[in-house]
């Protein structure tokens, strides 16, 4: 379906160039949801934007391959890109207020997609199909909503409209970049449910980007954990949560307050700070925070990706691996 191979994205800042995504590779199977989790600055959103080539210019640059039906998106000319975007791959964004054009009506923004990808469509048709989409995403009184502007809708409604726009051309892949972060928990639950339902109906694949492990657990089939621009672990969701292998994944899980945990007890912590993109080295990036002494070599030499099981990949350096096995924390 979608194959990402060695995707790297760099940003040119004022004085230096930083690598926000470092040789990311993954496959997205049909009809499945891939969750990408990570803390802020881990490169999850950037990688999503890189796939659709929506990085801000002139700073962002991507290399590597993003294959859709065997074709590399990164090599496509603008005309070909137009056919991919919206049609093949759609995207929804974190903040539905700013992601919708404030001066165009909901209907206009919805219909625009139809006009773009079905040039022969009549206005009435586009209207009807837009209405249909709004109904599909569960918006009450859709024909009224068509005339309304984004600022007249609530946050949840806006995100539904975003989803309706994204799904209007029945894309094969939907990239959802933190779609629920700005929403309240109750609304978040509805949106997640909605996405799940629509996925089932259309049999599409979803890349679900979030920092919330709880959301991942609820909505994804596969999870890819990112840290400092790199994938550290990828596994099916249950496997990951039950048997996290990478020290970072492990520590992350442990540092969350659990319902099962005794209240007011000390939480597991990860020492140190999230490394800034500017001071990254090539070697094991979690090393300095892992609590295990790392030698110079492991900090400068990039660790290899190991395939633990068929569906479980992990990038770990020998030292972390050894230390983990020795302390047998798992």
């Amino acid at each position: 379906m979608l194959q990402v191979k060695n995707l790297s994205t760099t940003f040119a800042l004022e004085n230096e160039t930083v690598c926000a995504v470092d040789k990311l590779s993954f496959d997205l199977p049909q009809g499945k949801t891939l969750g990408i989790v990570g803390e802020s600055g881990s490169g999850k959103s950037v990688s999503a934007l890189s796939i659709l080539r929506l990085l801000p210019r002139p700073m962002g640059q991507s290399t590597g391959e993003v294959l859709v039906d065997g074709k590399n998106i990164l090599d496509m000319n603008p005309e070909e890109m137009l056919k991919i975007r919206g049609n093949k791959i759609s995207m929804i964004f974190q903040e539905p207020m700013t992601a919708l054009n404030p001066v165009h009506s909901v209907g206009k923004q919805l219909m625009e997609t139809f006009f773009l990808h079905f040039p022969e469509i009549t206005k009435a048709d586009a209207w009807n199909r837009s209405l249909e989409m709004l109904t599909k995403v569960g918006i009450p009184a859709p024909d009224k909503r068509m005339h309304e502007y984004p600022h007249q809708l609530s946050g949840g409604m806006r995100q539904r409209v975003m989803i309706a726009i994204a799904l209007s051309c029945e894309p094969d892949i939907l990239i959802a970049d933190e779609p629920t972060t700005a929403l309240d928990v109750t609304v978040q639950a509805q949106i997640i449910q909605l996405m799940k339902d629509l996925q089932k109906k259309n049999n599409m694949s979803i890349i679900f980007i979030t920092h919330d492990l709880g959301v991942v657990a609820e909505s994804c089939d596969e999870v890819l954990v990112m840290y400092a621009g790199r994938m550290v672990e990828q596994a099916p969701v249950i496997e990951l949560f039950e048997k996290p292998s990478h020290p970072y994944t492990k520590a992350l899980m442990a540092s969350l307050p659990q319902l099962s945990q005794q209240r007011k007890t000390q939480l597991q912590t990860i020492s140190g700070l999230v490394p800034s993109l500017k001071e990254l080295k090539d070697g094991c990036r979690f090393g300095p925070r892992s609590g295990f002494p790392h030698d110079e070599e492991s900090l400068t030499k990039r660790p290899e990706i190991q395939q633990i099981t068929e569906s479980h990949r992990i990038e770990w350096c020998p030292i972390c691996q050894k230390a983990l096995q020795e302390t047998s924390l798992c």
Partner: protein
Amino acid sequence: MLNVQNLKMHFPVFGGLLRRQVAKVFAVDDVSLKVEPGETLGLVGESGCGKSTLGRAILQLYKPTGGSVQFLGKELTELSKSQMRDARKDIQVILQDPGESLNSRHTVGRIIEEPLEIHGIGKTAKDRKERAIELLKKVGLQEDSYNRYPHEFSGGQRQRISIARAIALEPKLIICDEAVSALDVSIQSQILNLLMDLQKEMNLAYIFISHDLSVVRHVSDRIAVMYLGKIVEITDTDTLYSDALHPYTQALMSAIPMPDPRRKKDGSNT
């Protein structure tokens, strides 16, 4: 220790040609709660339900429209400005965004020393500096942070500075207004641990305002659930999580995403 009775906080809405008051927003509407020394009261609710406003109204940062706030036997709403200044020694706040809540033009040392200076603690500048460095160490920062500026620190470290400032006066109560919401998961736990350590050490009481229910549950002894300016349910933590009474609380509880794929998957299947 803290006894809030029927606290009301109404904001007027102006509109029309002559900028007349056309409506009121009932940000906090008839709220009563109590906090005992050393206790943590969690305050949860969705955005816009008035939890931050409640916190600030207790702190007298907003003048409440009605009701009373009694703290250590004093009626805060009736205190004069100078009396209030004294009362503030015992009630402090930690705000959500540490980047915003620290004056970017002041050094860390100056930030921490400010409350000391205001309340005349520490006779000389040297005394205050010693105290500030002590506090820095207490919240896990290096001594050399003293002369640095907030923007040189990461989010977690800045929140530590905020905490240092808040505990500088050795208060009895600290209101943590979304104190960890802006932090990454890995940092969040550090701060939570620090807060809990300090509580034990200094017998602090917290009002812990957050929208993250799992965090609130972890740190709180009792939890108040706010909805549209009102407290719909207030009870001890375990009770709330096992059997919530109010339908809103129930809905809220069920919407929390659990980092447990199996449970949720099963749940959705049934």
